């Protein structure tokens, strides 16, 4: 009977695991709704913002802002948005793999790479790797607030303005639907690179293939600025930076809950399957034990009565 008891313990422990995974699944299922709403309301703003700055990049103002000029790339900065918690399938791993591939291409060209990690998982991952981790931000919670993001945004923005870094990228998981999240790397600064990226749009919701940004004009043109170019461009750029990073955290949050829901559903299903198999094995072991006992008794009786 020793085998049977071991199997019974195992069944119990799998059942406990299933309890945990199905609880996590339900938590994510309830949170995804809110996360998705937040993301959908912020999406048009982010999209329009991106188009506006791409327009600015194509204008030719007298005022020369550093963000409007493409510089020789010597050092790049990646803002990586990840989740705080694990148990969400390959969500973070996929994103990191994509970022790592990019980093390697830069390093082969002799370009320095800085990382700003948003979320515990990115912080842990990039600490182990040979890159400069210049900023981390963790524990954003279920309702990310813009105020919390300002610190890390300032690191990237200041680095760019002081000429220490020449390109800023934003990496996050774009929410497509519950089953699909797309690891995305978008260029944030300088603006001509943004305009370039919009022109070669990928054709998904955040990067429409035929964006309004595709204004091709033969002659150089410029906006009328009110009150003046410097004030307006500075203001727009601030807003742009904030809007993009904030929106990325929302996309990532929705992706996190979706990925966790799917991953935990799969885990619960697997646990159920494992319990079924184990129960079968347990019953067989029990039956074998009973059969053996009976045959022993019968054998014994025969020997005595013989």
């Amino acid at each position, binding site marked *: 009977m020793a085998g049977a008891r071991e199997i019974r313990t195992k069944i119990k422990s799998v059942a406990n695991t299933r309890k945990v995974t199905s609880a996590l699944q339900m938590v994510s299922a309830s949170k995804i709704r809110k996360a998705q709403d937040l993301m959908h*309301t*912020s999406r*048009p*703003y982010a999209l*329009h*913002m991106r*188009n*506006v700055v791409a*327009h*600015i990049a194509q*204008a030719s103002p007298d005022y020369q802002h550093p963000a409007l000029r493409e510089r020789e790339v010597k050092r790049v900065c990646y803002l990586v948005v990840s989740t705080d918690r694990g148990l969400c399938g390959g969500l973070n791993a996929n994103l990191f793999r994509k970022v790592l591939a990019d980093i390697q291409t830069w390093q082969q060209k002799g370009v320095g790479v800085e990382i700003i990690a948003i979320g515990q998982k990115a912080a842990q991952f990039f600490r182990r790797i040979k890159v400069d981790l210049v900023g981390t931000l963790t524990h954003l919670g279920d309702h990310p607030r813009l105020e919390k993001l300002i610190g890390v945004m300032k690191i990237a923005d200041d680095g760019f303005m002081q000429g220490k870094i020449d390109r800023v990228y934003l990496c996050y998981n774009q929410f497509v639907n519950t089953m699909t999240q797309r690891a995305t790397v978008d260029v944030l600064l300088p603006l001509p690179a943004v305009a370039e990226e919009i022109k070669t749009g990928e054709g998904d919701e955040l990067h429409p293939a035929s964006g*309004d940004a595709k*204004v091709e004009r033969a002659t150089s*043109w*410029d*906006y*009328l*600025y*009110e*009150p003046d170019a410097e*004030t*307006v*461009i500075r*203001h*727009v750029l601030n*807003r742009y930076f904030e*809007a993009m990073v*904030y929106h990325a955290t929302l996309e990532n949050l929705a992706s996190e809950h979706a990925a966790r829901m799917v991953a935990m559903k799969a885990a619960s299903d697997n646990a159920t399957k494992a319990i079924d198999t184990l129960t079968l094995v347990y019953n067989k072991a029990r039956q074998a034990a009973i059969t053996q006992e009976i045959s022993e008794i019968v054998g014994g009786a025969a020997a005595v009565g013989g």
Partner: protein
Amino acid sequence: MATIRCDIVSAEANIFHGEAALVIASGEAGELGIAPRHEPLLTRLKPGQVEVIGEDGKRQSYYVSGGILEVQPNVVTVLADTALRADEIDEAAVKRAKEEAERMLENRGDAKTVKQAQEQLTQALAQLSALERLRKNLQH
């Protein structure tokens, strides 16, 4: 009649999307009326009302608490900080905010609170004027 595409979005919602014959907004340097074929323009917005006049002459007003307005040859984009449909503004709440701001201005504290109060007051006043204009439009 010629129209221009108009998009009003805020960080919280997609507010308006459609064709307009004229868009009226209060820019930082003064009131703006944007008709189709307006020159490219980029400006900050003051707290106040953005009015969209449709092809059929129907007016729709929205309250924005600041933001950015961009004009391209065929599209006007308003990136609002917060935007409300004018008829969603709760008059009582606005009046309360105005009184609160005025009270704060009276017993002047340090410079920071004064600035905050002034901001609140401008916002409340802008919301009120948006409401009043809306009401006038309704009577016509």
